[in-house]
């Protein structure tokens, strides 16, 4: 592993983490909207 790579943040990881955050928003959001559509409880 050459010197340069050692300190540069892995770019692929950043890309995968962006995908991860998008997944969180999409999946959590869909559950949240489903709950909202089901009406109040008081």
């Amino acid at each position, binding site marked *: 592993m050459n010197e340069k790579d050692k300190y540069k*943040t892995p770019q692929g*990881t*950043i890309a995968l*983490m962006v995908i991860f*955050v998008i997944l*969180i*928003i999409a999946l*959590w959001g869909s559950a*949240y909207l489903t*709950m*909202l559509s*089901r*009406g*109040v*409880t*008081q």
Partner: protein
Amino acid sequence: MHIDRYERLFIYAAVALLVVFMGALAVSSFAFGIRVPTAYEKVDPRTVATPPSPWGLPAEERLRELSPGNYEVYLLGQMWQFSPNTITVPAGSRVTFYVTSKDVQHGFKIAGTNINIMALPGEVGVLTATFDTPGTYNFYCHEYCGALHHTMYGQIVVEE
């Protein structure tokens, strides 16, 4: 302690995301009114199904109309049939459920609504639902309560 610059940014983004989610939950709970059950009252399961306890009334009398379109029902969980297990109300009715159990733990979830309460002996769970669209809504026992747990369900019939 050294944290990589991008990792630090990622954690800050995660914190921000969680704060937004918590805000959305607070709005849906306090402003919109989708609330979880809270502590209500203790009862004695050995006598909860006998008068003068409200769950001691005959099943057909445990659904009461307090005022036009405003109902309350004292729902009793028992091995292995809810009582009453059919609740009929007109469309637009607002129904408050007082749920308890006289033997073991049961669950109470009305499909298609946010009504979801554990029915525990000795406790009373309270939530309210408004049924605008006519139709039949099943409610299930969703906590294992013995051999015939899978037969324990009921229906809310919302008429025109």
